[in-house]
């Protein structure tokens, strides 16, 4: 029963939403809408559950008192300072605003910006014309970089044209293939889940 009930619930919900999407049956519009609203509520609960899980994990890490405990301590301090200031002082309070704008926002931007540095270093170390495939990757990458930055068209007006052709023809052909094959794969996977053939999401293997 522990395994059958979730499969039945998944199947009912899944087929209801599929029917709502593909068929025009007024009677199922209301229940389908209700189920989707439950999904939003469940997602909010999942966030709370994730926070509880995170706190539990890092409390255990601190209990081990090893060299990484300090990282867990900093994480929990940040988590509680942000959550408590937001809950009790409001998200417009100077404390929450400081944490959000001066710490979180800056750090988030820094992490993203760092990828540019890693990209510069990695392109220098890894991009080698070793075979035709790597040549295609490097040449298309260089042409795209020149075609999408203003300096490229200042050097030669043909660079944006080539870049547009790469993104509009070569890329679209590949992306369409990936999109369609992913969609077909998703339909197959969804049918396996909805019919209970694949129960891996319950922690069990396929049967």
């Amino acid at each position, binding site marked *: 029963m522990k395994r059958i009930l979730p499969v039945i619930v998944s199947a009912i919900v899944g087929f209801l939403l599929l029917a709502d999407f593909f068929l025009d049956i007024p009677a199922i519009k209301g229940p389908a809408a209700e189920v*989707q609203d439950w999904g939003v509520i469940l*997602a909010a609960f999942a966030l709370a559950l994730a926070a509880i899980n995170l706190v539990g994990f890092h409390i255990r890490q601190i209990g081990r008192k090893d060299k990484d405990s300090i990282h867990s301590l900093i994480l929990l301090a940040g988590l509680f300072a942000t959550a408590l200031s937001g809950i009790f002082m409001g998200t417009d309070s100077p404390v929450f605003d400081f944490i*959000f704008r001066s710490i979180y926002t800056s750090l988030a931007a820094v992490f993203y910006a760092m990828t540019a540095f890693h990209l510069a270093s990695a392109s220098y170390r890894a991009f080698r014309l070793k075979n035709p495939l790597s040549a295609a990757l490097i040449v298309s990458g260089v042409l795209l970089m020149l075609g999408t930055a203003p300096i490229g068209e200042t050097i030669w007006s043909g660079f944006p044209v080539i870049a547009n052709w790469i993104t509009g023809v070569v890329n679209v052909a590949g992306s369409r293939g990936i999109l369609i094959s992913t969609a077909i794969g998703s339909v197959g996977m969804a049918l396996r889940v909805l019919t209970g053939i694949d129960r891996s999401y319950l922690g069990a293997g396929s049967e």
Partner: protein
Amino acid sequence: MGFFEKLGQIDTRIIYVLFILAILIPLVTPLGLPVTVSQHTKQTYEIVNSLQPGDTVIIDIGISYSGAGDVLPQTVAMLKHLMAKDVKVIFTGVQMDSSKIIEDLIRPYEEAGKQYGVDFCNLGYLAGGENAIAAYARDLRKAYPLDSRGNSTDTLAILQTVNSAKDANMFIFFSTQNADMYVRQIAEYQVPIVGGLIATIAPQAEPYLHAGQLKGMLVGLRGAAEYETMMESPGIGVASMDAQSIAHLLIIFFIVIANISYFATRGRTQPAKEASQ
């Protein structure tokens, strides 16, 4: 170690310093490189420009602060355009940072006299990702009983005439994630969809644009610069283009010298490698 070996083994710290300089110098002393407008941006500008005063659009802010540098300037430019045309905007969000970002976007217009709840509203963050988009696209007031400021959405004038995606004149999204979930959930409402994406994700959305499911798309910081150029109102996008240009050139320069080193030393290093194996 010979010249070509050295060329292939430049210290990472030197690369980083050169990269910082390549970004900083053009920001301090702009080169003023001309920004030509791509077909994507022209198409996007024209469809947004076709909106009439009093029309209402839904803008979903799917932006996290980590990728905001690439996509937020697009949002700023397009909102400026919409506000200038007296288009009403309902803001929604599927990223946790959405609510704060929206407040920052609307504050200057609120201070300039636009009225909250009438000209725009901030419905804030709704958990659930694609499911959240499906829920609010069908019934905004039901999905959002309260707005981000704690007002009941039943009291907001802007939501009295528009309560779902099909009531809106346009659906616009700005995302650091993808376009897929918006196209999947909004296309059925037959409302024009326009998107703004980070440059690394935009190529994945090209098929939607070619198929007409997306009516317009802005691509990364360049898209913002082009939109600002179309509006004849240069902003952060145009200001960043010189830095992006020089950074791209520097990366190309590194790729070229690395490959010169590779070909010049290939014959010499291969036997040594084979011997070690």
